[in-house]
């Protein structure tokens, strides 16, 4: 695309703006309004009169985090109706993964209709960038990123690697 120059005229400022005073006063009006309204709400809430909160802060570790409906959280491996993993070890998620955090090894499945299944399925959440490409790539809808778990800290790098049983646990 060719670069073009588009002149943007500077905003014209009159004496009122240039003296700053009126604009400063307007700004102060906004912050004072917030200050006193919030202060009143805090006080009323403290006195137990009204429940309206004076702040939008979520006290995160004390209160649960609010996740968006489509937030990408920890991965989850889905099961078939008979309880076996849906994953057929096609390795498309491992291939698409830009962080290379998925490690799958395949094996022969005893079920001839399934044919191939994952022997191991590890996700290194320490490397995962939560892009969701693996979910998009999966042809059998075996992996979702909706475990609604965002607290994934661990005490060692090794503990950040989740294996297949862990990823299939607490399936919704």
């Amino acid at each position, binding site marked *: 695309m060719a670069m073009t120059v588009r002149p943007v005229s500077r905003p014209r400022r009159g004496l009122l703006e240039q003296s700053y005073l009126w604009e*400063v006063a307007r700004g*102060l009006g906004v*912050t*004072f309004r917030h200050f006193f309204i919030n*202060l009143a709400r805090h006080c009323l809430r403290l006195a137990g009169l009204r429940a309206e909160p004076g*702040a*939008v*802060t979520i006290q995160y570790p004390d209160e649960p985090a609010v996740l968006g409906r489509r937030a990408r959280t920890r991965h989850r491996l889905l099961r078939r109706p008979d309880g076996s993993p849906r994953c057929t070890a096609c390795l498309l998620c491992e291939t698409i993964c830009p962080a290379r955090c998925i490690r799958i090894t395949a094996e022969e499945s005893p079920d001839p209709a399934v044919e191939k299944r994952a022997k191991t399925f590890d996700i290194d959440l320490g490397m995962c960038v939560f892009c969701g490409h693996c979910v998009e790539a999966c042809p059998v809808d075996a992996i979702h990123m909706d475990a609604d778990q965002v607290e994934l800290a661990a005490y060692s790098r090794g503990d950040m690697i989740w294996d297949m049983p862990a990823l299939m646990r607490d399936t919704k």
Partner: protein
Amino acid sequence: MILLAWTAVKVGYALAFGLGLAGFLGWVERKQSAVAQDRIGANRAQIFGWRLIGLFHPIADGIKLITKEDFVPARALRPFHALAPALSLGCCLLCLAALPFGGTVEVFGRVWSLQPFESRVGLVYVLAFLALGVHGVVMAGYVSGSNYGLLGGLRGAAQMVAYEVCMAAILAAPMFLYGTLDLQEAVLAQGGYWGGWLPTWGVFRQPLAFVLYLVAGTAASKRIPFDLPEGEAEIVGYHVEYSGMKFGMFMISDFVENIVVCGLGATLFLGGWGIPFVSLAGAWGGLLMLASFAVKTCALLFLLMQVRWTLPRFRVDQLLDLGWKSVLPLALLNFLATVWGAWLWR
């Protein structure tokens, strides 16, 4: 002997007023900004589960600053590196001495003055020590052995010198009206009433000077929107090479400077310790004087704090333009108009 003891008491009160309020301002700064921005603000420090709306945070800050490693860069000039914060804090603490926390009261058959340091030239004294504070800033920037610190110190010097000049020019007009340089007499000069109801406070007699004073005072005490010498988060300032309590001293001296500016503003524009329509006498009168002065100072602090959390920072050229090209000429014009007006009035 009694006089000496009384002076010691007054000095103690001034120090307690300045340093106590400075510590408190740390909490105010956090909480006021939080409430104005729909947040909660610092509330995690606790003693036995008591949080007291974050009032323990200044204490926690103090403990942290004292116990932190006192790091001195290898290229710093050690004695001066230590001297700079002391100079900064010392100068602004000395300013407190000349503030009229109260007038004179007659108790136990004696006349007691509530001003720690009574001087015919109190204003000049305060302005002088405020101006001396710049040495601490420049020294800190220069001896740190850091380019960032040096640049911050130079910005500080340019800014503070510019606005000290402005301060003197601005205050010339009200002081001309009061006819004195003694701060106590300036308070007394604001004790009258116009039309029997409007107190003859400086803010009503010199509204332009009041506004200019707030601007220059904010700049002289290096507060946002004029905090270019510091700029902690982005442009880093003269105290970038300081840590621990030395850094804390710079922080405190900032707050104390702010208190001095607001105290001086309350004295010269808000009628000082006076309370309209209330005659203050005796011990209770003295306490009311102290309270009145404290309330007026705090009101100004509150206003400046709100300004700090409302406006973005000025650029250095804008700042100096504002000082030299707007505030100073306006102050001089205001002084000329005042003198001329007074002559016409007569």
